[in-house]
C-alpha cells in the first residue's frame, strides 16, 4: 500500500510536470491531476489509519473489514460498468467539452474509466465502513 501510494504520487507529479512543460495547464490536463491527487490523499489517510491501528494493537483486518472491502469492490464494479457505458455514449460530449477535440483518444478513455473506478471504490468503501448495514 505504501509502495502504491508513492507510485501514484510520483505519477501525478511527473504528469503535472510534463503538462506544464507542454503548456497544457488547462482544465483538461488539470482534471486528471486533481483526481489522481485526491486518490493519493485518500491512500495517505488510509495508511495513517492503519498505522494508528498497529500502534493501538488492533488487527489490521478482521471479518468485518474484509466484508467491507468485498462489498465496496462488488458495488464499485457494477458502477464502473455503467460509468464505462456512460463514457462511450457521451464520448463526443466529453471530447468536445474537455479537450476541444472530435474524439477521445485511448489513453483519455482508459484514464477516465480507471479514475471513475477508483473514485467509485473510495466512495463505496467510505459508505460501507461508516454507515453501511452489512447484514
Amino acid at each position, binding site marked *: 500500500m505504501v509502495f502504491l501510494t508513492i507510485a501514484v504520487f510520483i505519477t501525478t507529479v511527473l504528469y503535472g510536470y510534463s503538462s506544464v512543460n507542454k503548456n497544457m495547464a488547462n482544465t483538461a490536463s488539470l482534471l486528471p491531476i486533481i483526481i489522481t491527487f485526491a486518490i493519493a490523499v485518500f491512500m495517505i489517510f488510509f495508511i495513517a489509519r492503519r498505522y494508528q*491501528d498497529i500502534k493501538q*494493537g*488492533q*488487527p489490521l483486518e*478482521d*471479518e*468485518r473489514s474484509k466484508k467491507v472491502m468485498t462489498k465496496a469492490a462488488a458495488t464499485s464494479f457494477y458502477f464502473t460498468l455503467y460509468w464505462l457505458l456512460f463514457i462511450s455514449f457521451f464520448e463526443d460530449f466529453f471530447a468536445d467539452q474537455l479537450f476541444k477535440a472530435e474524439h477521445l483518444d485511448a489513453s483519455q478513455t482508459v484514464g477516465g474509466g480507471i479514475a471513475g473506478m477508483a473514485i467509485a471504490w473510495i466512495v463505496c468503501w467510505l459508505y460501507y465502513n461508516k454507515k453501511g448495514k*452489512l447484514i
Partner: protein
Amino acid sequence: MDNRIKEFRARYNLTQDELAKKVGVRRETIVFLEQGKYNPSLKLAHDIASELKVKIDDLFTF
C-alpha cells in the same frame, strides 16, 4: 438480528476495545455489532459468547 452484547459486556466491566482484543477483531466490529448493523460469523459469535460466558442463544435473538 438483535443482541445483548452491551448488556453482558457491562456485567464484566469490559470496554468495547477490551472485548475486541479478546476475540481478535477491530473495535469498530464490536461497535457495529452492538448497534445491530453487522451480523457476525458463527465463529465470532461463538468467541464472543465464550468470552462473556453465555450461550449463543442468550446473546443473539432472532
